[in-house]
């Protein structure tokens, strides 16, 4: 198994084991269990996958195979302020790509990554239902509309 890099919160581990029990520790429930696990921990580090493998009695290689197959699952913890840029059709045609590029340039991270200080993470999403405000960016729960590349610095400054 991989060497332990992070310490898991014992209470959260207990919760994860309860989830496994609630699915009767069935190997066939792997995806459902992982879904709940990501809900508990926010992401799926190797240590969580190892617990799931042991509880459901499936190879950890299989768990990792499933985690890497579905884009919903992530092994990278989200930043303190998760940034989501909408790349749905309306936002896309109104310049979301350029906004996204500006976030990437300023934070020096790619989509799906978290900044080294753990402050920001960057992801894309598809349509938040505010197409009239396109292009739309969300930081945490807060929604920013009609964002231009020039406005990116201003948004980030709010969280410095």
């Amino acid at each position, binding site marked *: *198994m*991989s060497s332990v890099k992070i*310490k*898991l919160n*014992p209470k959260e581990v207990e919760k994860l084991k309860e989830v496994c029990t609630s699915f009767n520790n069935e190997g066939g429930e792997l995806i459902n269990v992982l879904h709940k696990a990501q809900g508990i921990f926010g992401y799926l580090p190797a240590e969580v996958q190892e617990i799931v493998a*042991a509880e459901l009695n499936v190879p950890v*290689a*299989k768990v990792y*195979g499933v985690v890497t*197959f579905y884009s919903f699952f992530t092994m990278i913890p989200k930043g303190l302020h998760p940034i989501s840029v909408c790349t749905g059709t309306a936002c896309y045609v109104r310049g979301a790509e350029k906004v996204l590029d500006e976030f990437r340039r300023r934070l020096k991270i790619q989509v799906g990554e978290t900044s080294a200080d753990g402050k920001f993470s960057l992801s894309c999403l598809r349509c938040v239902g505010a197409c009239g405000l396109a292009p739309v960016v969300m930081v945490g729960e807060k929604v920013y509309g009609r964002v231009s590349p020039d406005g990116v610095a201003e948004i980030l400054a709010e969280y410095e």
Partner: protein
Amino acid sequence: MEFVNLIIDNKPVKVEKGTSILKAAHSVGIDIPTLCYMSLGDMNIENKPGGCRICVVEVEGRKNLAPACCTDAHTDMVIKTNTMRVLNSRRTVLELILSDHPADCLICAKSGNCELQSMAHKLGVRKIHYKGEMSTYKEDFSPTIIRDMDKCIMCRRCEMMCNKVQTVGALWGINRGFQSVVSPAFEMDLEKSTCTYCGQCVAVCPTGALTEVDHTNQVIGALADPKKTVVVQTAPAVRAALGEEFGMKPGTLVTGKLTAALRRLGFDYVFDTDFAADLTIMEEGTELLGRLGRHLAGDKTVKLPMLTSCCPGWVNFFEKQFPELKDIPSTARSPQQMFGAIAKTYFADQIKVERKDMMVISVMPCLAKKWECQRDEFATDGSPDVDFSISTRELANLIKGANIDFNSLPDEEFDNPMGESTGAGVIFGTTGGVIEAAVRTAYELQTKKKLEKVDFEELRGFEGVREATIDFDGLPIRIGIAHGLGNARKLLEDIKAGKSNFHAIEIMACPGGCIGGGGQPLHHGDSSILKARQMALYEEDKNKPIRKSHENPFIVKLYKEFLGKPMSEKAHHLLHTHYFDKKNEFIIE
């Protein structure tokens, strides 16, 4: 039984319902090329992920082409297997696979034995019309297996063997689309995974993605060193398979030519691991009778059933997955290691060679043996009892490289004293063989009576899990046999649950036993080859003048001159081992 009637290439075909188009075509002699598909029918092993699409055929009335390996034959189907459309599609599919495959065939370890290369030849690919990104991965060097995933074509045969057949769970398909590849969890090195080095992934890999670590150069180096006395031992299963590498029919016994070839390669002493197999029986058999005796006398602390311990893949398996059972297997070392321990003590003294000047090389049908001889327990002051282990395939390469015309070699005999063996030692190479050899000796030692019939047909065969009760003159001895680690797991789960009532269980990691080992000539999905090898070993056993290990005169002499008696202190020191808990638990603080 329900049947379906269909037409394939204008031929009427009648097959059982549920049969694939591929098998239906085979039943009337029509060949459909396959790449990812593999079937070892006799052992219920089948890989048909429908991934490569080489086997596509045209089905009348169906818009797209159908993959023959995973489409069932239905009544009234009219199938064409070689139309222009089919042939063009196959070639396109193959070109796309080749467009993401390194074209270093000239120097690839699998060259000449690669199913992808053969397919390119068969379909007449002369140009690859597609260019694009190539997948690249870090090469993974474990002590026995090299993973070069640039050459992986995602047939997923290795994944099937590792999980369905062996239940080892080291390899699984990860990521998706262009990024998908077979890998251990978290892309860790194979060495850190649950891998047992059984080598069954290597045995089925169609390309050069999975190969063994090549130790032939180390062997050549040893042979070229005038200061070294180089001793070689060859495992039983090697003689039943090596001939295939030189175009001989599967099941051809080449014991004599093998010996001659080793001598011509320059080994100073050409010995037989079968000798050490006889020695194993003396130790393991005595251990079994000891445990049995105490059990019958009412000792409740005795661990039964006793499990055999000759197979290093199996040892790795229980150390990693069933460490709580590590006191149950026999403590007897494997024949390879017993041989090394005796060669570098008793035999080295006899020929007055110092340990440091002796090299012991083993030729094994196995990849796990490469790891076994590197284990710390099997070394004295950092000097291993067995220096290098090479596979049957590597030996074939050595012989070819040395320009030896194998087929025209005369039959020669092994050297003495460690070349003498009995029929019991020979059958160690097949599933059921170790326990049959043990029964032949244990019966006579226990009952003090002569065994009239040494063939125990009830212990032979190819079933994954077998059981038999042998009458030890009124004492019924219950025996279990499993080959393939998935089958072994079933027996282990029973032991863990307290449901096992066997006295002894033989376990071999590879399907068929060592004859189907990860280091053997590739079977390319033909299980009849494994059966032919098994028959060859029983044939050699039958032809041996002595067929019980304890009657081997050189074994008797070894105990008289050196070891004392089985399980003596010296025997314990040289011929027995202990096992470790290697289940790596995650730590939560």
